[in-house]
């Protein structure tokens, strides 16, 4: 075993993505749900960079760069929303913040 097969990276990415999905589904705190989304984005980034290596082209890295930037913007807005929710409702439990639900 000299080198790592690229597929391992992709499998790792898949596992992380699945974990992100699990967190997204099972966690009840808005902030943790949000973090699970970040985890999914990260796992996708890993695939991008891995494919970029495979294809010997940087485009994949550029995409992951864009993902990061979008994630940062998303985090700023998302956390502001969370702050507002907490201010108005006094809780971060996702099933207590369901006034939009019928």
């Amino acid at each position: 075993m000299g080198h790592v097969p690229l597929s391992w990276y992709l499998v790792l990415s898949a596992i992380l993505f699945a974990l992100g999905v699990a967190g997204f589904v099972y966690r009840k705190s808005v902030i943790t749900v949000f973090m699970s989304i970040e985890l999914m984005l990260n796992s996708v980034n890993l695939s991008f960079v891995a494919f970029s290596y495979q294809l010997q082209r940087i485009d994949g890295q550029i995409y992951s760069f864009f993902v990061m930037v979008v994630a940062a913007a998303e985090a700023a807005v998302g956390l502001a929303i969370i702050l507002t929710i907490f201010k108005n409702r006094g809780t971060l439990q996702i099933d207590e913040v369901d006034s939009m639900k019928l």
Partner: protein
Amino acid sequence: MIDTVLFIICAIVAVVCGFNLVLQKHPISSALSLIGVMSSLAVLYLLLGAEFIAMTQMIVYGGAVMVLFVFVIMLLNAGSEKASSKSWFAQIAGVPLLLAFVGILAFLIRGVLPPLGTVAFGSWVGGTAEHVGQLLFTTYLLPFEIISVLILIAILGAVVLARKEID
């Protein structure tokens, strides 16, 4: 040799931290786990020759996004999660479905994709700041500009949302 060891260490750290993120009850533990995932991913990026992306990962994700998360958690002093009723579907079928999902993906990667190469540390360094910058300001100039506008909008939105006189 060294990159195999590094990959295995980082992969284990990433997966353990990922599990921790899902399983921990306290948001700050989850946030810390996520930082762990991100740091190990940064090392993996380095192994894949993406120096710039690795550093950006640490600066943007580790230094900005996650600091914001931690800051907000501390500010709100968000306590541990309360266990609440989950939907019966998720409880019964969730884990098997996820396992199936990972399995299918793994099968796709191993079997369906054309054979992939191996990763040798240092064999291809395409991701230096120079390369990324070159591409970013030529081919991807338009997306770059759009995304900077997006960031501006996000900043404004965050400021508006987090203002004190929210109501």
